[in-house]
């Protein structure tokens, strides 16, 4: 099962923020975590993550820092900010509302 494009795009922000809330990370690791969490259902085109990260950085929901990785190359690490956490909480409530609504109607459909 592959998710629709719009749904993937809409879920990108909360997903990235939630992963960064677990701890600082970098692009490749974030992609791996997404695949892991979704059991392979959420397939991102790898490159597309970066414009999203840069947007979050511009909106100050995350901050970024270049530092050396264990393989010696410079790597750009992202960290969630306070505003990012607030945004994550807000998004979480919104998704919860959507989820509740859908759940309600599907439960009814099942029991009817």
């Amino acid at each position: 099962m592959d998710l629709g494009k719009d749904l993937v795009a809409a879920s990108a922000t909360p997903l990235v923020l939630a992963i960064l809330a677990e701890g600082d990370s970098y692009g490749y690791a974030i992609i791996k975590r997404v695949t892991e969490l979704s059991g392979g259902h959420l397939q991102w085109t790898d490159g597309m993550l970066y414009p999203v990260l840069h947007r979050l950085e511009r909106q100050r929901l995350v901050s970024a820092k270049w530092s050396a990785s264990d393989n010696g190359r410079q790597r750009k690490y992202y960290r969630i900010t306070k505003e990012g956490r607030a945004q994550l909480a807000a998004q979480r409530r919104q998704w919860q509302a959507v989820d509740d609504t859908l759940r309600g109607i599907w439960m009814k459909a099942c029991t009817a």
Partner: protein
Amino acid sequence: MTAPADRPPVEDQIAQWRAYLRRRRAIDGPDVEELEGHLRDALAGLTASGLAEDEAFLVAVKRMGSLDALSREFAREHSNRLWKQLVIAPDDAEESGTAARTETLVVLGLAVAAALAIKVPALFGLRLSPDDELPPFYARNASLFVLPLLTVYFVWKRGLDVVSGLWLALPFAAGAVFANVYPFRTGGDTEVLTALHLPIALWLAVGFAYVRGRWFADGGRMNFVRFSGELAIYYVLIALGGGVLTGFTFMMFAAIEMNAEWFVAGWLIPCGAMGAVIIASWLVEAKQSVIENMAPVLTRLFTPLFTILLLVFLATMAWTGRPIDVERGVLIGFDLLLVVVVGLVLYAASARRPEAPPDFFDALQLLLVVSALAVDALALAAIAARISEFGFTPNRVAALGENLILLVNLGWSARLYARFLRDRAPFAVLERWQIAYLPVYSIWAAFVALIFPPVFGYR
């Protein structure tokens, strides 16, 4: 590209991929680093899970997504970056940052050299100052301070060999010798004519360097025409900025009751005017693609306006029966008008897709050319009448020659336009005619600058 034996082939593939990425204007240096880091991590992950290196590269690149889609996303997020195209050196080839830096240094060096060159005569007592009149030496030699340096830039940039470079030095040397050994009567007509025509003649030498000495190779001359037009646009823009700078210089030093006039007239304006030629050329070279649309846009805007002007002028002349008053200023004015019309035709041609069918704008161009022809014929008649009445003067002969040259160009252009509009000939014929005609202007200008003074006794 051959790989050194000790370098794994995947490194070459990565280098190539990075080069592709660099060409995307919306993705800048650190982003390329970041994306490359990602690619390398993905490669490491895939080879660890058992894929061969080249297979892993294919999979990793595929997962990265198509470069087009990627740069579109980057452009959406970083739309502000696109302006940078204006000031950053070329990125079309696999040129590294060092090449761009070298070019910046060369350009700055040449600009400073041009700015200093204009001050050299001051060491020999020819001072530029607001109190004295401008020594005519500067007017005669204005182009010689900067055009040789501009030619050096193109010789360097295009990688011309030394021999061609030395050949190109010849016209400049000749211009410098003749402009200065002729015993001009100060402020005489021939001196003014030489000052006006020498730059036009020498511009051809710049053109030779621009097209790498291959004057007849495909497209080179048309590119030079575009370059000249865009250089003019950039130069005017820089001059506007310079005007603002000058204004502030005066204002601020006046505020502390000091007169900055000697600095502005002696240094800021002459040095700035010279250096700006080099800088403007470099900007045009570096980022042709951005402003490439400027000359055509101006052409589209002003072709209808100039057509209306010419038609209204002709109608007024016919209505009132007033003759053209032949004075030096008027003659030059009409010549310039025709130059503008030829320029409009030339830039319309340079911006047009040759294979496109005739449209309304082409018909408008024909109308412009025909009305310019009519005005030109009237001006010619006026000059001829003047000459038959009062005899030859250098100004009248120069104006007559320029008029004839432009008349021939416009007449033949009108014929080709008409044929094109009736689908008898492709547009390319008109374009070829225009570019084949280019040297005529410079040759005539050289003739006026160098032959007229002795013929007319330096008066």
